[in-house]
């Protein structure tokens, strides 16, 4: 844990320091955001459809009335579902990739070579990935939220009988811009966690292909756990701030 916190501190220290690497940053942002968009849209669509169908099913059982399902589903989507599902997808796609990439560099002594060339590995490897992940996650969070809402609206129109207007009215009753912005704060936090955890396991990778595989697995597991824990902490913090 201490080593991880040291990496976090060093990364934060390196962010404002030169040289900046915009091309590397855009390359990473393209990898994190643009290339993840189709997968995120596809997955969160189904997650949203399942959520609204299950919400309707349970509401009918519990209170024999599903009139508030659109608003309830919209709230669930905005506050939790879209961003958390996106973050978990990013963990498996981006986090695993980063851990494998940095791990391979570590075991092939490329990181040592960087040091020999006077390049700070954290500044060269972690900072562009961290910034790309934070900004990319915020962008993906916005896209995922809207996609989820559109998918939920579509399902509620075709299967539950709520017209889009009813959905939006019900949504207005339950959610506000603060919920959306809260989701984006969560997305930024998740975007902060994923590259740091992945790079940490990459830097500490054991020798051989097996070591890289283990580091990748560990990074995905640790990132997923961290995302869920941070999600809980942020939800608790927002509930305190709103009260």
């Amino acid at each position, binding site marked *: 844990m201490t080593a991880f916190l040291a990496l976090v501190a060093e990364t934060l220290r390196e962010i404002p320091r030169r040289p900046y690497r915009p091309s590397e940053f*855009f*390359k990473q*942002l*393209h990898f994190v*955001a*643009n290339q993840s*968009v189709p997968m995120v849209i596809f997955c969160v669509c189904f997650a949203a459809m399942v959520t609204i169908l299950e919400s309707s099913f349970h509401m009918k059982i519990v209170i024999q*009335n599903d*009139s*508030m399902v659109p608003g309830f589903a919209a709230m669930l989507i905005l506050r939790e579902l879209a961003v958390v599902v996106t973050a978990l997808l990013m963990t498996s796609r981006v986090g695993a990739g980063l851990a494998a990439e940095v791990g391979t560099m570590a075991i092939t002594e490329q990181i040592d070579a960087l040091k020999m060339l006077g390049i700070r590995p954290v500044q060269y490897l972690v900072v562009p990935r961290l910034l790309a992940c934070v900004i990319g996650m*915020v*962008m993906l969070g*916005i*896209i995922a*939220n*809207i996609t989820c*809402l559109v998918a939920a609206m579509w399902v509620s129109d075709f299967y539950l009988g709520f017209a889009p207007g009813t959905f*939006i009215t019900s*949504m*207005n*009753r339950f*959610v*506000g*811009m603060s919920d*959306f912005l809260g989701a984006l704060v969560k997305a930024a936090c998740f975007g902060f966690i994923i590259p740091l955890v992945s790079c940490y396991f990459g830097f500490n990778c054991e020798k051989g292909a097996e070591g890289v595989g283990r580091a990748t697995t560990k990074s995905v597991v640790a990132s997923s756990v961290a995302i869920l824990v941070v999600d809980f902490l942020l939800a608790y913090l927002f509930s305190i701030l709103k009260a």
Partner: protein
Amino acid sequence: MRAETKVGLLFLTTIVVLIGFGYFIGALNPFSNTHELNVMYNFAGGIEEGSPVRVMGIKVGKVSKIEFDPSYRSPSGEEVKLKLRIQIDKAAWSTVRQDSKFFINLAGVIGEKFLEISPGSSSAGELTPDAFVRGEDPPRVDQLISQSYGLAGKLIEIVEKNEGSASNLIGQLDKLVTNFNKTLALMDKTSKNPEVSRLVDNAVKISDDLSYLTGQLRTKKAEESFALMHKLLFRMENLDKEAIKKFLQEEGIRARMF
């Protein structure tokens, strides 16, 4: 296409999507076309900022701000301290008149609060934007419930204090009802007795006869006879017993009169 361009396009898309979402949920509205009005209350009953404002059931705006305004006094001198600043679409503004009423109502199964404006009469003038109007305070359900609790407590106390009397009263009532039932049963039985039936029949016959006799007495002949008798008695009134005695003695009749 370069990676930077693709990233830029995605960034622009997310910004557009974000603005679109803000517009849809009403957080951003660059084309706002509303007037504002201050509605004063002493009790807002759970309404919140963002709650809808409706005229004739149609949403025409929202509550934009709720704040305390201790300095405000209504034209009648009443202290009204809670200010609800509401936005009303210009299209609906003409329906809100000086005699309009501003209620806080509940809607839907989840009990959403909204501000209902009853449109006033067309003879009353239009309100000016940013004017102050007095709203109708919603009923204090919490107070009503607490008063009900007090009343229920008093009722329980009364019942507990007079438990013996109340039981006694109920016992007496029970006996009374039992006796009444017995009386009704007896009356029912009596009405079916042949002797009683005969008695009733005879009473009916007597009543008929009496009716016939009184009818006869009301005939012209009976009236004439009655008048003649009256006349006769009137004439006889002047005769005294001395005169009659003398008359009878003269005729050789000895009689004891009166």
